[in-house]
């Protein structure tokens, strides 16, 4: 049984197309505290403020513009404080009129595009700041085992975090479709190449397929260069109504479409197809809302906690059939190619400040659509697809999937 429901099939015309635009972005450098010489020791609070001020400067707005407006805060995975969004308001000096926490893990940053665009479209607010930060290398939060499936049905068997589960997804895909390390390595090498062209990249030394294949086995068959890289850092973006957007400093980047699927299941919930991701439906909904076809999309910025997850998303978004190895062999995924992906390097190469890592893909999409991509600029980019993913549940693929379509023309 395939779950298939939502506003797209209810007969209603529901849309937030062109009702809001991203008008400012802020992206701090990332660090891993001592992995490179001279790395700073900064707190989450400092990264939050840094990212916010970069975004304010970019948009030409000030703190007072956000009083009574929207504030969205990604909720870090390791932070047990349930009132974190309110505390962030105090850290930044904002009294929001509409406060949302990004509660979909790494998908939170993209989910908040939907939530804040809807709030702007409804007239609740006409500006929203979305901000996220984490400093796992300089702050040590308590790591108690919380109630839930992981405590009761996973950890007692000696599972070692998400690596164990994604390893089973990757092995199953290789078994069913004959996917090899060459297919997956092409994704990893492409993303690293783009990071080498991105001044905000962290891992900037180009690598070869052999470097990927020879990287350390972490959770067989998952290797070190399959995995996202935790880092300290902060990221922010600002959304505005069309009226506000037109009077600001930078070219607006319009929200054209949005779709989300949390707790997706392809097959029975007790035994779903673990190789299919909720982006299949989130992407379809977002593309239908935006009125775009696959050929209209100039680049993909895909949430990349693992290389296999990027690969699965290209399939499930419908750019090729499931298991079409030839497509991956024949497609140039670089910024100059037929289907540019991960043009900033992704968080595998730029670093994942916990769930704030999900903001990375939005910021890179905005840069490309503004023509600020520098040495990695996608030629004539007009439409881009951004995804966010969060949570690896007990027996399935990722539990929270959000997709946004951005464009630089109304």
């Amino acid at each position, binding site marked *: 049984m395939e779950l298939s429901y939502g506003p797209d099939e209810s007969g209603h015309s529901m849309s937030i197309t062109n009702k809001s635009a991203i008008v400012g972005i802020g992206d701090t450098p990332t660090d891993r505290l001592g992995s490179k010489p001279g790395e700073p020791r900064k707190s989450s609070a400092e990264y939050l403020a840094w990212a916010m001020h970069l975004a304010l400067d970019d948009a030409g707005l000030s703190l007072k513009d956000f009083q009574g407006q929207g504030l969205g805060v990604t909720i870090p995975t390791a932070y047990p404080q349930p009132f974190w969004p309110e505390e962030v308001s105090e850290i930044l000096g904002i009294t929001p009129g509409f406060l949302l926490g990004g509660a979909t893990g790494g998908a939170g940053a993209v989910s908040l595009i939907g939530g804040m665009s809807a709030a702007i479209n409804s007239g609740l607010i006409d500006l929203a700041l979305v901000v996220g930060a984490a400093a796992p290398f300089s702050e040590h939060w308590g*790591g108690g*085992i919380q*109630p839930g*499936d992981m*405590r*009761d*049905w*996973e*950890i*007692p*068997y*000696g*599972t*070692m*975090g998400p*690596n*164990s*589960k994604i*390893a*089973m*997804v990757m*092995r*199953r895909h290789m*078994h069913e479709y004959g996917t090899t390390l060459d297919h997956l390595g092409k994704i990893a090498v492409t993303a690293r190449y783009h990071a080498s062209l991105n001044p905000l990249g962290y891992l900037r030394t180009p690598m070869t397929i052999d470097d990927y294949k020879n990287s350390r*086995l972490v*959770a*067989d*068959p*998952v290797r070190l260069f399959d995995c996202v890289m935790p880092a300290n850092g902060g990221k922010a973006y600002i959304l505005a109504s069309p009226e506000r957007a037109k009077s600001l400093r930078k070219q607006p980047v319009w929200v054209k479409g949005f779709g989300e699927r949390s707790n997706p299941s392809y097959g*029975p*919930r*007790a*035994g*779903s197809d*673990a190789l299919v991701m909720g982006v299949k439906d989130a992407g379809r909904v977002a593309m239908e809302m935006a009125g775009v076809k696959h050929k209209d999309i100039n680049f993909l910025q895909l949430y990349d906690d693992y290389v296999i997850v990027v690969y699965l998303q290209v399939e499930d978004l419908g750019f090729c059939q499931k298991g079409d190895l030839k497509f991956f062999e024949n497609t140039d995924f670089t910024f100059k190619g037929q289907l540019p992906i991960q043009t900033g390097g992704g968080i595998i190469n730029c670093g994942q400040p916990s769930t704030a890592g999900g903001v990375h893909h939005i910021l890179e999409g905005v840069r490309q659509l503004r023509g600020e991509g520098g040495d990695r600029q996608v030629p004539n980019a007009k439409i881009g697809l951004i995804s966010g993913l969060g949570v690896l549940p*007990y*027996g399935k693929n990722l539990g929270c999937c959000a997709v946004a379509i951005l464009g630089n023309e109304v």
Partner: protein
Amino acid sequence: MAELDVRKPLPAITSEAKAFWDAAAQQQLTIQRCQDCRAWVWTPRPSCNECGSQKVEWTPMSGKGEVYSFTVIRQVVGRAASKAFEPDIPYVIAWVDLDEGPRLITNIVGCPVEDVKLGMKVTVQFDKASEKIWLPKFKPA
């Protein structure tokens, strides 16, 4: 049946899962089944998460299944409690699809890790983890 290291994290016996652990202590694998839509409900839930029916009943399972996928744990990482698994390295974490349908996270035991393959037929065994907790694991059938 191996006696597990007592320092390993144990599941909490939540009220919705108590019947599962009671049966496991009697060497019986049970899974909830919806009496209205016939869906299997796993992990334990207060009602059917396919149709919403509250008529879910614990149902004895064959204990037979096959390996859907697996990984081999060769190092412990993360939280402190992970250290308790160090003496078991290398060991197999698997998704086992029961013949009846539901998929379980479990360990494959009773054979060298090199022998574990996708599609391998397996059968349940219960390892005592505490007086009340017997963990269902799987061995080659």
